């Protein structure tokens, strides 16, 4: 917490500096496609100042939207892209990713993350990892939420106050988890059950939009009591309220890993890789982790992190909690198609805001 505040303070002090630096960046602009609030502005500023470039950030709020953005321009328009591990091989096959050169700071990265998803080792650098669980207002529920089952078959107190993530894979997979099935199942029967569960669950849903975690968050106002949420985002909310609680449900959640890489279409591939290398400077990686509250795959950086950060079970869940959790696996096309179809029906009932 303290650190975040310091960081903010620093950002305010340095803002004029960043502004002054801008005129010097004449030619190069580095375009980054990334989750919202998934970079430390100070690091960005620092990089811009250091390398005399302008970093232009584009944000997505769901995997589907990111895919859409990439597909729309055939992978063009971005230099750096942050992609969830499950999609890395697809992007590679689409030819959207540039192969990874040798990088000085690669040595700090835990190689464990390189083999989790196909194609990552050759093309991308692990960025952060985390879990998908449930964030909820502990003060507004009669009993703590500990399972997906509680989430998908909600009590009256939750009804109409539930938020989801606008991502078919996440929603359908977690519904499968709540039913005790694998998040990667190909079983028609299990999917049928999941569909039925979601159809029944649908009336209790307030929104499919991933809620924001700023000061005007619907969770802070109480409009949303429980939400499917990525672990680190919860911590940002907890900065604003002590009533927010995060749980990795008993059925297990999803362990995800985000990777960062350079697009094949990029015209500043070297600079782009330089930026990725910059982010993996242990000091920078530690700063970034503390800013976004996610676990970094950078082992050198990890050592720089304070104990409180490392001991935070939200960021570093216990092995026990992780036992039931799964990485997403690539589904067979026809299976995946079913996941999509199920989610499309849920979407009709709760059309997401057409912000994208």
């Amino acid at each position, binding site marked *: 917490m303290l650190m975040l505040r310091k960081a903010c303070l620093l950002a305010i002090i340095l803002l004029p500096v960043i502004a002054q630096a801008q005129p010097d960046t004449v030619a190069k602009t580095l375009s980054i496609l990334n989750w919202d609030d998934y970079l430390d502005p100070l690091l960005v500023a620092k990089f811009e100042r250091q390398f005399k470039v302008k970093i232009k950030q584009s944000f997505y709020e769901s995997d589907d939207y990111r895919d859409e953005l990439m597909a729309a321009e055939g992978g063009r328009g971005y230099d750096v892209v942050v992609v969830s591990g499950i999609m890395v091989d697809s992007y590679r096959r689409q030819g959207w990713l540039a192969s990874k050169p040798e990088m000085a700071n690669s040595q700090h990265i835990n190689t464990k993350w390189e083999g989790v998803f196909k194609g990552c080792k050759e093309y991308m650098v692990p960025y952060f990892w985390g879990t998908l669980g449930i964030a909820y207002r502990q003060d507004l529920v009669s009993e703590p939420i500990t399972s997906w089952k509680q989430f998908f078959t909600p009590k009256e107190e939750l009804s109409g106050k539930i938020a989801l993530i606008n991502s078919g894979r996440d929603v359908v997979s977690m519904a499968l988890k709540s039913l005790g099935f694998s998040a990667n199942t190909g079983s028609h029967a299990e999917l049928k059950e999941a569909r039925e569960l979601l159809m029944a669950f649908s009336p209790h849903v307030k929104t499919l939009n991933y809620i924001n975690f700023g000061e005007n968050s619907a969770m802070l106002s109480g409009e949303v009591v429980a939400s499917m949420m990525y672990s680190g985002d919860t911590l940002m909310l907890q900065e604003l309220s002590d009533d927010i609680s995060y749980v990795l449900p008993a059925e297990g959640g999803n362990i995800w890993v985000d990777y960062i890489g350079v697009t094949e279409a990029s015209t500043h591939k070297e600079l782009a890789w330089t930026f990725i290398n910059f982010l993996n400077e242990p000091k920078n990686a530690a700063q970034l982790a503390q800013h976004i509250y996610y676990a970094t795959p950078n082992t050198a950086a990890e050592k720089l992190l304070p104990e409180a950060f490392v001991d935070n079970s939200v960021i570093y869940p216990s092995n026990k909690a992780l036992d039931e959790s799964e990485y997403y696996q690539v589904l067979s096309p026809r299976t995946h198609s079913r996941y999509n*179809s199920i989610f*499309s029906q849920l979407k009709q009932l709760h*059309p997401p805001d057409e912000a994208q």
Partner: protein
Amino acid sequence: MKLNNKFICIVLPLIILPILLVGFNAYQYLYQNSKTKALFVMHSQLDHVQQQLLQELRLVQANLQLLASDTQVQQYALTEDEYNRIGIYQPAVLKRFHKYHLAHPNYLEIRFVLPDGFQESYWSAPLHYQGDKDEAQSVWLKTLKHSNLKTIKELYLDQQPLLKAYQELRIKNQATEGYHDEKQLRGYLAVTVQLNWLLEAMKDRSSEQGQLMALMHSNGSQAVGNSKLEPKIRQVLAQYITDSSAALNSQHASAEISIDQESYFISSRKVWGEYFLVAMIPKAQVNMAAQKLSSGLIFITLSVIAITLILIMLVLRNTVVKPLQLLSLASKKIGEGQLDTKLNLGTSFEFKELSTSFNLMSDKLKKSAQEIQFMAYHDSLTRLPNRRMFQYLLSNNLASAKRKKETLALLFLDLDNFKTINDDLGHEVGDLLLKSFAARISTTLREEDTIGKDDVTQDLDLVSRLGGDEFTVVLPHLHNHVDASVVAQRIIKAMQTVFKIENHQFYVSTSIGIAMYPADALDIEGLVKCADIAMYNAKNAGRNTYKFYMQSMNVAIINRVKHESELHTAIEKKQLILHFQPQVNIQSKGFYGVEALVRWMHPQRGLIPPNDFITLAEETGMILELGKWVLFESCRKAKAWAELGVSNFKVSVNVSSVQFQRQDVTKLVAQALQESQLAAEFLTLEITESVLMSAEDSNRQTLLDIKKMGVSLAIDDFGTGYSSLSFLRQFPVDTLKIDRAFIVQSNREPEVRAIISAIITMAHALKLTVVAEGVESESELEFLISSDCDYVQGYYYSKPLSEDKFLEFYKKEMVNTQGGSNIQ
């Protein structure tokens, strides 16, 4: 049959027949109309549904084409990496499909099917989720694959009719494929459209006329309709479709078919392929619509008939029947004698005229009836009530008088010398006289203000003519006798005016007898009898007078009748003789003249004084004969005396007023003088004041004529009448004889003496000589001398003397007064 009913019998068919005719035609028209309308509705609905279906189809095809050309769809379809096609592109495609659903909510499913029939991208409305499908064996897929068709559509007709449309997606990958490469089949876009509007559209407006509408396959295998389609009906419809589609012009054609002996109108439209829309209306339903209208029409017809009937009856009653009834009623009334019945039949011209004619007739009838009645009760000559009416009026008046305890008088009038006039001048003049007489009586009564003024009894009705010259007057509401006498006097006075009939002039007098109720009699008969007696009495009293009935009159009449006959005998048998009373010059005491006075030497009763029979003679008219005899005898005696030397004095002879009325006195005097050869200068006629009074004109002329002959005239009994001295100036009178009553009273009453003196003075002023009658004493004589009276007559000098004794008296006088005759 009453006019009302007859009229209705004629008019009703005239009204009903056209209405029924119109009604029948209207029914026909309405039936045709409702059939046309029903068919029109059927056709238009068929057209409408057909157009909607085709429109829906066109829209689906357009949308499929749009989807097929959508970038994201194409990107997706072109992605050969199956993982990426699903992992990267499919969500966007599903999102796209969802947007189409949002635009067309009845698109229940939108799918992308791979060429091998695998349904890869499946979007469905949650409630219509069908799940995975492998359509490798589908008819549509086979059809599309093995034909040139690019699209295909299918209808699924059950309770949720669906339209399924398929479009092949055949595109070229511009990045990898060359210009000459053929477009490759990437898959098929399929849309499932829910035709939920179809059922509504088929139901719309059809239920009200029982229309059946269906969308079906020509073989009847599939069908959906607005009502349950029995297999039998389905079969009939399919049969019709098959038959009609064979015909070239099936559009807008309709036919009649029969199912279970019930007729229907039927028509169909081809939608596409073997799909047809078919509609059917039961004929009975169409008829029912017409029948419904016609039953309304029947009601209207009946209402119109009823209203018309009522109106006709009302109008007829008011304009014809009622006037006729009124006319009949009025005629009946007239028949019953109510002749003053008036008719008002309203303003309609004919009836107004009828009214007028009727009223004219009624008026005329009334007038003639009144005339007849009038003639029955009235005298045609004078138009006065006749005897019968008189009886009736009198009885009415009597009854009224009895009730009100009033006095009533009955007057009997008789023209005194009518018989003579009638005999002398003829009936015509007599009738006219009677008419004038009657008029004059009536006028007199009408002028009367205080008597007979009564609202019940009209003036005219007071006077009646009983016949001949007999009239009656009834005077009701009297206070006493005097009222009756006043009326009688007025009547008598009214007769003093001359009657001018044609060229004749008459003086007519009347004698009036008055009987009073209740004093004299209480009933009609009694009153009539009493009035008759009283009238008779008035006649006897010298006529031109009135008499009230008195009890004694009955006795007097009996006496009078006796005397009457005796008097006749007396004249014939010369039982009458003349006595003479000398008149003496009061200054010279010498003999002046003599008054001849008649005496009746009755064989049994001896000498009867004139008072006892003169009145009777006047009443019976015998005075005429008697007066004539006295005049002639007096003249003869005077002549005889003259031859004896007893002459140079005047002989006075009394002439009755009756004689003046009924005799030509002038002629009589002339005859007497001529017959006796007596000089006129020795004759004096003594007349009563009544002669002067009652006959101012005719008598005056008579008197002038007599005077012209040289005969002197004296007024006898002056002072008893009402004449005045100034009045006398009009007459050629020479002498006044003051009535004996004045002389008798002169002894005792100074006022009488004053009157006598005045009379004498004034008479002298008029150059009249005055004779005082009935002088019996010295004192009377002395008074008369002092009063400068000229002559006296009376017992003081001599009572009336027989001829012998008079001659002795004369000789003695001649001795006393030598040649003492004094002629003036």
